[in-house]
C-alpha cells in the first residue's frame, strides 16, 4: 500500500518536469533552427544586406565604436575596424565564409566517412578491419597540426582550408555510419530486399542509408560547428583564410592588438561565432530528439 502511495508521489513529482522538458527542447531546437537559418540567409544574400563594401578602407574612420557607444557614427552600425572597414559588412561576409566552410567541409567529410562506414559496417570481416584501421589512423592524426602543416606548405586559400578540413573530419561520420549500419544490416527488410533481387549497391544506398540518415544528420551538425570553429582557429593563427577575406577568426586575430582600448572589435566577431556554433549545436540536439522519436514508432 505504502509503496503504491510513494510511487504515486514520485509520479506526481516527475510529471511536470517531464512535461516541461520537451517544450524547452522544442524551444531550443527552434532557436537553433532560427540562428542557422538566419546565418544561411545572411550568407546567401550578403551583397544585398551589406551597407558598405567590406573591403573598402577609410583610414579617417578607424576604430569607430558601434552605435550604442559614444563617438559612434550612424552609417557604421557596428563601427569600423583598425583600417576603417565597416564592421557589420565584414561580419555579414564572414558569415558567408563560415557557412561555406561548414557546409562544404561537411559534404566532403560526409561523403568519405559515410561511404567508408557503411561499407565497413555492412560487409564486416576483412573489409571492416580495413575501415577500422583507416579510422584509427585518422584518429591518431593531430588535426590542427596537420592542417597547419598543409596550409603552411600549400599556402592558405579558402579551397585549401575546406579540403584539408574535409579530408580530416570524416572520422565521426565513419564511426557512426559503421555502427548504425551494423544494426540495420541484420534486420529482416535487408534480407527481404535481397530476396527480392536487389543489388548490393541498391541495398546500401536505398535500404541502409535512409535508415541511418537520422543519426548522420546529427553528426553533420556537430561536424559543421567543429569545422567553423577550426576555420576560425586556423585563421586566428594566420594559416586559414587569407586576408583581406573577412573571416571571423581572422577578424578576431586582427583585433587582438586593439582589444584593450577598443574591446568591441574582438567581442563582436567572437559573439557572432559563439552564437552560430551554439545555434548549430542546438539544432543538432533537437534533430536527434525529433528523429529519435521517429525511430521509436
Amino acid at each position, binding site marked *: 500500500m505504502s509503496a503504491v502511495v510513494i510511487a504515486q508521489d514520485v509520479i506526481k513529482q516527475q510529471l511536470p518536469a517531464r512535461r516541461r522538458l520537451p517544450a524547452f527542447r522544442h524551444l531550443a531546437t527552434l532557436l537553433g533552427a532560427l540562428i542557422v537559418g538566419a546565418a544561411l540567409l545572411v550568407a546567401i544574400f550578403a551583397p544585398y544586406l551589406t551597407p558598405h563594401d567590406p573591403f573598402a578602407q577609410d583610414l579617417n574612420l578607424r576604430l569607430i565604436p558601434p552605435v550604442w557607444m559614444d563617438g559612434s557614427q550612424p552609417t557604421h552600425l557596428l563601427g569600423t575596424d583598425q583600417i576603417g572597414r565597416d564592421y557589420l559588412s565584414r561580419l555579414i561576409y564572414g558569415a558567408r565564409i563560415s557557412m561555406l566552410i561548414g557546409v562544404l567541409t561537411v559534404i566532403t567529410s560526409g561523403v568519405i566517412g559515410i561511404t567508408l562506414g557503411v561499407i565497413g559496417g555492412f560487409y564486416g*570481416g576483412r573489409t571492416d578491419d580495413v575501415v577500422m584501421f583507416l579510422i584509427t589512423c585518422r584518429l591518431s592524426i593531430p588535426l590542427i597540426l596537420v592542417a597547419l602543416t598543409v596550409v603552411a606548405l600549400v599556402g592558405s586559400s579558402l579551397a585549401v582550408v575546406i579540403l584539408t578540413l574535409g579530408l580530416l573530419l570524416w572520422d565521426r561520420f565513419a564511426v557512426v555510419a559503421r555502427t548504425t549500419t551494423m544494426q540495420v544490416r541484420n*534486420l*529482416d*527488410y535487408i*534480407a*527481404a*530486399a*535481397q*530476396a*527480392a*533481387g*536487389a*543489388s548490393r549497391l541498391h541495398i546500401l544506398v536505398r*535500404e541502409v542509408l*535512409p*535508415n541511418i540518415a537520422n543519426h548522420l544528420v546529427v553528426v553533420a551538425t556537430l561536424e559543421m560547428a567543429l569545422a567553423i570553429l577550426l576555420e576560425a582557429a586556423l585563421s586566428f593563427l594566420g594559416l586559414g583564410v587569407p586576408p583581406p577575406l573577412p573571416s571571423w577568426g581572422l577578424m578576431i586575430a586582427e583585433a587582438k592588438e586593439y582589444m584593450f582600448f577598443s574591446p568591441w572589435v574582438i567581442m563582436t566577431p567572437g559573439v557572432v561565432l559563439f552564437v552560430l556554433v551554439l545555434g548549430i549545436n542546438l539544432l543538432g540536439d533537437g534533430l536527434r530528439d525529433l528523429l529519435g522519436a521517429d525511430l521509436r*514508432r
Partner: protein
Amino acid sequence: MRPLVPDPVLSVANLRVSFGQTEAVRGMSLAVARGETHCMVGESGCGKSVSALSVMNLLPRGINRTADHIRFQGQDLLGMSERQMARLRGDKIAMIFQEPMTSLNPAYTIGSQMSEVFERHRRAARSQAMDRAAELLARVGITAPGMRLGQYPHQLSGGLRQRVMIAMALMCDPELLIADEPTTALDVTVQAQILRLLQKLQQELGLALLLITHDLGVVARMAQRLSVMYAGEVVETGTVAEVFAAPTHPYTRGLLDCIPVPGKTQTGEPLGNIPGVVPRIPPGFVGCGFRDRCTLATPECAESVPLRDAGGDHCYLCRLPPDWKRATAA
C-alpha cells in the same frame, strides 16, 4: 531422398550446408511441383530456414553450400552467378519472411516498396507498378488499397503487413514461393486468415509453395506433401495423407504426440514431449541424429541409417521397419 515428384518446379538433391564445426544441413533433398504445397517441418535449428536460404543463395558469407543439384525449372541454380540469381529473386522465386514487423523498410511507403520490385524485374514505369501493387493488395484482401499504398509500415498492423509481404512477393508472378514460418509472429486468428489467403492464392495462381513451419496443424491443412527435418536431414517424407496415416520415424511420431487432438486428448492428460534439444552435428557424424533423444534407440543407431520405403511416395530414415508400431504394440 529420391524425389518422386514428376516435373518439379524446384528440386534439390543432396544439399549440404556447413559453417565452422557445424553441419547445418546434411544431404537434404526435396522436390516441389507446380500447384503443390510442400511443407518442411521440424523444431528450431533443424536446418529448415538454412535450406530455404540456400535455395535462394542468400546464406551469409563463410557458409559452405554444396549439392548435387538445385534445379529450378530445369536450370541449375548452383552454377549461377550472383547477377543471374538476383534476376530470379523476387521475380520467379519469391520469399516471405517470419517477421512482418521488421520485413518492411520503415523508410518507404508500402506502394514504393511494392512497385520497386516490379520496376526492377519488369522495367516497368512507376505508375504501372503502382497499379499492379493496388491490384495485388486488393487480391490479398486489403480494403482501400489506394490508401494503403501511401502509408508507411508503422501505420499497419502485423497481419496487414504480412498481407503486404505476400502481395509484394506476388508482384512479378513467381513460379515458386518460399514462405519461412509466415504466421509464427502473428496471433492465432490472424494466422488462420493468412494461411487461408496463402492457400487460396496458391490454388488460384498455381504456385509451387514451399512452406516452412513447425506447426503440424498448418501442414495438415495446407500441404499436399511434407518433409520432416531433423538435425539437417529429411527424416521422413511423403504425401501428407501417407505420413499422417502412418507416421513411422520416431521423431515424426514424437511431433504428432505433442499436438492435442480434439475428442481424443483428455483434459488433464499430459501431452507428449520430446525431451532434449536438437544436437549440433559436427563434421564426420555417423548414424541417426535423433538417437540421443529417441526412446527406441539401440547401439545399431550409431551406424549408418538406411532409407526405408513405406509404400507410395512415403519413405523415412530409420533402422525400424515400417510396421514397427504394430510390432511393438503386439
